[in-house]
């Protein structure tokens, strides 16, 4: 008797019976036929009851919902006023001190650069910058890891900054200036940046949730910058605050 089919193999059988690889096994395995029968019943339950009462809502919500004001605009570089910033960064901005990066593990550093008429300048933690400033980011890690960069503002709105698209964090090695950048939303107040890097891919939702939980229920938490909890062991994190001035 061959090995019993996994759930995914049975799903593939239901999805495209003509290409099923488990049919021979099913013919001789009562247990798998029973599982398949139950799956068919659940599928029918979905089609008869769940789909009709939920399809309109699902289809209507398929476009990402954005706030009326767009908080942070991910832009490509070099572009507009940030061309100078990009040039400065590409020509070799100061590197994070070597002793900041652990020889072992995923110690992480985050540096922020703001574009201005005079070129790019590094922004210090907690520094006040124009609310519509254009920012780029430099990240360094002690070992290859998968990176998310997000931010949260004083109202608790979490924004995804890098990578700007896709459902997986970006594989990242050493120290680098991240491609692209953001234009701040023009709204005055604190904006805290969180970089999270781990050996294994952390779902975006998990990082977003950790940020929301970290700042929940405490006025001023965004400025204080609590450490994120609920991330996988070994995940490195770095954070920085900027104060947006009107």
């Amino acid at each position, binding site marked *: 008797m061959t090995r019993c089919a*996994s*759930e995914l193999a049975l799903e593939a059988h239901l999805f495209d019976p003509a290409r099923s690889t488990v049919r021979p096994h099913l013919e001789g395995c009562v247990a798998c036929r029973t599982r398949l029968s139950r799956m068919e019943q659940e599928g029918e339950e979905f089609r008869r009851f769940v789909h009709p009462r939920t*399809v309109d809502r699902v289809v209507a919500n*398929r476009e990402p919902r954005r706030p009326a004001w767009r908080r942070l605009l991910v832009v490509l570089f070099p572009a507009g006023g940030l061309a100078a910033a990009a040039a400065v960064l590409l020509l070799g901005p100061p590197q994070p001190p070597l002793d900041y990066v652990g020889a072992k593990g995923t110690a992480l550093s985050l540096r922020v650069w703001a574009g201005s008429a005079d070129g790019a300048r590094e922004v210090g933690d907690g520094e006040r910058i124009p609310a519509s400033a254009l920012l780029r980011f430099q990240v360094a890690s002690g070992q290859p890891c998968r990176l998310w960069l997000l931010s949260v503002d004083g109202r608790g709105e979490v924004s995804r900054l890098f990578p700007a698209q896709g459902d997986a964090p970006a594989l990242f090695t050493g120290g680098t200036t991240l491609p692209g950048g953001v234009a701040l939303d023009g709204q005055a107040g604190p904006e805290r940046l969180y970089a999270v890097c781990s050996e294994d891919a*952390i779902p975006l939702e998990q990082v977003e949730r950790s940020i929301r939980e970290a700042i929940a229920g405490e006025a001023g938490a965004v400025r204080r910058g609590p450490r994120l909890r609920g991330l996988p062991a070994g995940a490195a994190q770095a954070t920085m605050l900027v104060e947006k001035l009107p």
Partner: protein
Amino acid sequence: MEDPRSQAARLYRELGPVVYRRCLRLLGDRAAAEDATQEVFVKLLRDMDRLKDRETVLPWVYRVAMNHCLNLRRDARRRGQDGMAEDLDVVPDAHAEGPDAYPDRQLAQAVLSRFDGETQAVAVGVLVDGMEHEEIAAVLGISRRTVSRKLARFLENARKFIARTGTGEAEPDEGAVP
């Protein structure tokens, strides 16, 4: 030519059952599975091209649904709703070798929600869904070696946990969520 809205509705009808079954299996509650199915499918519909690719869509849908529902289980555990985190059904016949192949399945369920998302997905894929290491590796986009390593770590920590309980707490370890 099919308009986008009709196309989305058709894809939901065709692939919704995959998501619904996954959520029902992981959440063990029909209402919760229905809610989760909608949430998952809204995410999936944002990448319509990928959703239409019949060659690759199934493992992707399976993975997104699994990750979403495992996250819900973890959230429920944090809120103290431990019932949801303890009720996974094992698939006793998923391996021809029978329970000897993975004698730790029940044990695995008891500690599942203590681990990070990817480790949970590996444990569920192998120990609950009966997937081959290669199969779950392909679904998650990781190497077979990583699957083996995560599974070994998971089982080792699960055994430690069981050795200390029913009353104790597992010591934090690599892969375990504090």
